[in-house]
């Protein structure tokens, strides 16, 4: 695994030249008439998106999927190009969300069809993209700082996704040459700078988009190495949903995603609340979640995505009964998901169900007809994960029982007391930094260890070993010794108690417990704690 692969940094360069204001010539009916009111009304004419709108919404969808699945360490820099380059955000983690990008895009607005096309060019954006790739991200910076003398191990790679309308193949070549030259120049600059990094590898993805029904003037070309630093590929795509489909395929390729279709989801019908039908929902996630299928070549589980938008989806069946939260499943991986069709009713039903804290086991249909539960969908704090459950034979089967091993024959362990101990030593997050008296940062986890150390200084494991804890009701010594600091009153109390005990011993009074303990031994052991 590499953190700083090409997908650490993605630069979108979207053409904002006058031509992009052209219609994509794919109509959208938006005035869908409700049945009982249709009479006598002519629906409003359908509208169509501009090339710009198609490009922007497709790239936003790319980002949506990416942010859902990789909320950290995968960054996008969005650039719009017309008479100059407009950089809409930075590499910082705060800038990495859809809301920021949408607000910035709204500020740019659609391209002006009446602007002078001669002044506008996608080149401004491409140059800015190379500049952006040289800029160090906070993750790269942090890694370099931690690695110190090995800082050169931190890679700087990136990807430029450029959506434009090119004039010809030679125009495309000109764009590629420009990127290559700019990289060359900026790498020279970066070599002499502390804040910039040289680009080691850049993947240029040029997407030529044009209105539906027109002939493309640019031909597709698979990935090709232009120089050791730069590779380039060209996609010629019709606008409208074709462009969206292309970017959906690309986001899957770029981030190693795979698709799972959850099938047989029981759902109440919108119109008839008392009937339910079964629905399918398609999710994207990292392809590691399919590692078992991929390696074992279990291809029969694959099917085709409903609209044939991309290669393959693995079908998993919704499984009832559901699992409960106190069960600890053996889970070999958990991967964030993103619904392909986020706003569709089946998708939002499924995601809301999960966000409400319920989990669903998923069953893998197998050739033999046997049922194997292989995955689980579950949300943790508003994020949904696809858990991979181990479905193969366990190498730990039939282990010797703990009662057969060391300490297994002892029967009077203080199980309940230790349970209480564990509950008192549960962990909780401390998100605000706290400081010690000397001003240094306090690490909560170290505090937890200190507390365990203190609480176990005197902690007999079996009932017959302890007198003090068994007398707890009468003699409150044990609860005092774990206190952070003893007050004078506590000390006084303890002393009183001990004198009492000593006194009782002298008088040969029985101790206030029924078990046979070593009489009078307690106070001696306790002696150390008074030094606290």
């Amino acid at each position, binding site marked *: 695994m590499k953190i700083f692969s090409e997908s650490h940094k993605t630069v979108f360069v979207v053409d904002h030249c006058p031509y992009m204001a052209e219609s994509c010539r794919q109509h959208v009916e938006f005035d869908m008439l409700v049945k009982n009111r249709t009479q006598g009304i002519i629906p409003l004419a359908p509208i169509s998106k501009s090339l710009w709108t198609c490009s922007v919404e497709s790239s936003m969808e790319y980002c949506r999927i990416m942010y859902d699945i990789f909320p950290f360490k995968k960054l996008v820099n969005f650039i719009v190009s017309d008479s100059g380059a407009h950089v809409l955000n930075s590499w910082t983690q705060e800038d990495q969300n859809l809301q920021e990008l949408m607000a910035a895009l709204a500020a740019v607005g659609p391209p002006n069809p009446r602007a002078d096309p001669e002044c506008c060019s996608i080149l401004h954006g491409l140059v800015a993209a190379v500049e952006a790739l040289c800029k160090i991200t906070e993750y790269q910076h942090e890694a370099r700082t931690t690695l110190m003398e090995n800082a050169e*191990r931190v890679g700087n790679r990136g990807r430029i996704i450029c959506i434009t309308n090119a004039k010809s193949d030679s125009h495309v070549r000109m764009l590629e040459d420009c990127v290559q030259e700019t990289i060359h120049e900026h790498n020279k600059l970066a070599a002499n700078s502390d804040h910039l990094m040289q680009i080691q590898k850049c993947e240029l993805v040029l997407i030529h988009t044009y209105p539906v029904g027109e002939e493309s003037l640019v031909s597709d070309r698979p990935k090709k190495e232009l120089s050791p630093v730069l590779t380039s590929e060209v996609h010629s795509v019709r606008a409208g949903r074709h462009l969206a489909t292309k970017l959906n395929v690309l986001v899957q390729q770029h981030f190693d995603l795979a698709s799972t279709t959850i099938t047989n989801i029981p759902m109440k019908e919108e119109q008839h609340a008392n009937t339910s039908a079964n629905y399918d929902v398609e999710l994207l996630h990292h392809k590691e979640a399919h590692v078992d299928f991929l390696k074992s070549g279990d291809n029969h589980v694959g099917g085709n995505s409903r609209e044939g938008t991309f290669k393959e989806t693995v079908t998993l069946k919704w499984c009832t009964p559901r699992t409960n939260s106190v069960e600890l499943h053996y889970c070999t991986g958990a991967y964030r998901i993103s619904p392909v069709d986020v706003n569709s009713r089946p*998708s939002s039903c499924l995601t809301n169900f999960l966000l409400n804290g319920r989990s669903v086991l998923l069953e893998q249909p197998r050739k033999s007809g046997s049922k194997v539960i292989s995955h689980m969908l579950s949300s943790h704090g*508003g994020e949904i994960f696809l858990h991979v459950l181990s479905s193969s034979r366990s190498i730990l089967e039939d282990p010797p029982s703990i009662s057969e091993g060391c300490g297994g024959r002892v029967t009077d362990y203080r199980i309940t007391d230790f349970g209480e101990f564990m509950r008192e030593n549960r*962990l909780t*997050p401390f998100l605000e930094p706290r400081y010690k008296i000397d001003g240094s940062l306090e690490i909560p986890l170290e505090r937890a260890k200190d507390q365990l150390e203190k609480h176990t200084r005197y902690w007999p494991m079996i009932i017959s070993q302890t007198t003090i804890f068994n007398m707890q009701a009468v003699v409150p010594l044990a609860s005092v010794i774990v206190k952070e600091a003893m007050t004078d009153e506590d000390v006084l109390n303890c002393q009183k108690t001990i004198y009492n005990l000593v006194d009782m011993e002298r008088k040969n009074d029985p101790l206030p417990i029924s078990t046979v303990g070593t009489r009078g031994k307690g106070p001696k052991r306790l002696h150390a704690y008074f030094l606290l």
Partner: protein
Amino acid sequence: MPTVVVMDVSLSMTRPVSVEGSEEYQRKHLAVHGLTMLFEHMATNYKLEFTALVVFSSLWELMVPFTRDYNTLQEALSNMDDYDKTCLESALLGVCNIVQQEWGAAIPCQVVLVTDGCLGIGRGSLRHSLATHSQRSDSNRFPLPFPFPSKLYVMCMANLEELQSTDSLDCLERLIDLNNGEGQIFTIDGPLCLKNVQSMFGSLIDLAYTPFHAVLKCGHLTSDVQVFPRPEPFIIDEEIDPIPKAINTDLEIVGFVDIADISSPPVLSRHLVLPIALNREGDEVGPGITDDTEDENSANQIAGKIPNFCVLLHGSLKVEGMVAVVQLGPEWFGMLYSQADSKKKSNLMMSLFEPGPEPLPWLGKMAQLGPISDAKENPYGEDDNKSPFPLQPKNKRSYAQNVTVWIKPSGLQTDVQKILRNARKLPEKTQTFYKELNRLRKAALAFGFLELLKGVADMLERECTLLPDTAHPDAAFQLTHAAQQLKVASTGASEYAAYDHNIAPLQTDFPSSSTERM
């Protein structure tokens, strides 16, 4: 990690070895001797390991399926016949099948290949396999790298000089390379004799089959334990930090978390944590190395009667439904819990999280976890009815925040219809109407889809003309107002098309109508 022993039984293994002053040995005998030693070691010190035995020549055969019964394995060693030529590729393919059938593709396996370094001739020989390696298609893929995580150990019944005199060593090295470098080649150091074979297998045992002993600690409460299977070193990032990290032999409990809060976390591997009793020489008494069984039994009995922290911890974890968070190294954690095998048998298990400062997003950064006594009030509540977990992420995911996606026409139509439905229920639905309207407006502005704003404005104006006589007069005012606001926004003029601006309901003076009844 299960083990597959792959034994070469081709004719070349019967080549005699000259051993001074004793009867004649064949290489095969040396191999059997070495394997016997390996099996004996496993039977005493590594007895939970599953091992299978495969023999091969031009064909292969599974002699013993995966078992912990080392007697059966030993017996099989003495029942091997001699066959024809070496054909490694088909044997490795056989190993793939055997392992995947039994364990799937996720469980790491160790493959111990025992051969004499004669790699066969003609088709099916390793040379031939390697020579054609680059011309393979998916259907006749070379079996390496194995489709499961693996280590390939090649035990050569030959010394280095002999292997280097031909290209055998190069071929075997390529084999390891093909397995992504996972594995190692062992050769006999010096002349071929029983003693040197023993030392070769001794190195394999040291490398792969020494039990992992550790000390489990919770403050002052401690226990000596064996962790089985051995935790494997892990590489966090091959580029930034290519050195494999191994876990500490001190396993330090840092605190406890409820099972519902840890919530079936993803783990790298899981291991049994078995308490052991170490005697003064540092030998373990528990799973026993003593030859005398009576001694062993009595020692076991004594150990069974001495209270052990593992047993206490296991009991309480089981009763309370909790896990113990354990630190395995710098920025590496795991969890201890009770795992029931059947109704009666249960065990202390340890699962390893992926190394890093934040292995589970829903617990947050591990270093930020502290004792509840440091919190102002108990985050679990006085009645134990709440929990500080899971942690909420800073940004919501798309499915949790009602994003607008209009790639499919249906997405757009649904959003428009929502507005329309609410428009027809004005003024009751004034708030929802404007909420939906503003959502559409924002998205249309971001996507530069101004034509839609104009279209929806037209639609609202039409709705206004269609209002029935019974409609509340406010409805017409609101519709006209909304339509007009969308129209000005659709010009894209900066004063009307600001993203953060929201269209507010028109303030009207009709009694009890301007606010929505919730």
